[in-house]
C-alpha cells in the first residue's frame, strides 16, 4: 500500500522535473525561462523529499531503527534550505540580467526600466 504512495510521489516529482527542463527550450527569453525552470524544479524536489519522508516513516514503523528518523529530518532540512535559497537566487539572476542590458523579448512595456529612469514614482 505505502509502495504505491511512494511511487505516485516519485512520478509527480519526475514529471515536474522533466517539464521544468523542457521549459528551458520552449520559451523565447531569459526571464520566462527562469520562471518556468525555477518553479517546476522546486515543486518536483518538494515531492521527491516527500517520497523519502513517507518511505522513512514506513521504515521506522517496520524496523524501529532510529537511522530512518535521522534520514527524514535531514531531508526536511535540505528541503527548507532549497526553498529558502532557490527563489532568492532566481531574483538575483533576473535583476542582474536586466541591469546588464538583456531586454525581454516581445515586451511592449518595461516597467522596471521606467522606474530606474525615475519617470514613475
Amino acid at each position, binding site marked *: 500500500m505505502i509502495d504505491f504512495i511512494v511511487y505516485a510521489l516519485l512520478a509527480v516529482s519526475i514529471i515536474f522535473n522533466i517539464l521544468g527542463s523542457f521549459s528551458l527550450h520552449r520559451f523565447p527569453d531569459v526571464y520566462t525561462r527562469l520562471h518556468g525552470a525555477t518553479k517546476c524544479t522546486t515543486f518536483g524536489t518538494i515531492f521527491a523529499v516527500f517520497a523519502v519522508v513517507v518511505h522513512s516513516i514506513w521504515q521506522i514503523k517496520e524496523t524501529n531503527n532510529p537511522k530512518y528518523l535521522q534520514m527524514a529530518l535531514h531531508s526536511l532540512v535540505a528541503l527548507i534550505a532549497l526553498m529558502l535559497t*532557490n527563489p532568492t537566487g532566481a531574483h538575483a539572476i533576473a535583476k542582474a540580467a536586466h541591469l546588464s542590458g538583456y531586454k525581454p523579448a516581445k515586451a511592449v512595456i518595461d516597467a522596471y526600466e521606467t522606474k530606474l529612469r525615475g519617470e514613475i514614482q
Partner: protein
Amino acid sequence: MIFIGFFYGILGVILAGVITLVRVMLGPSVPDRVVGVDTLNTLIVAGMILLGAAYDRVIYIDIAIVYALLSYIGTLVVAKYLQGGLE
C-alpha cells in the same frame, strides 16, 4: 533494505539533467547559461537525496544540504559579477 522505486526516480532526474545540459551548452547569451546551471544545481540536490534514500546512507543527504547552500552562494556571486560590481 533497498527500495527499487528510488532508482527509477534517479533515472528521471538524470534525464531532466541531460535536457538541461543541452540548454547550458547552446544558450545564446550568458544569463541563459546561468539559468541552466541554477536548474542543474536543484536537480543535483534532488538526485542526491533520492540516492541517499536508495542506498540507506544518511551522509549523502548531509552532502546535499551543503551542496544546496554552496550552489546558492555561487549563483549570487555570478549574478553580482554579471550586473557589474557591488552596487
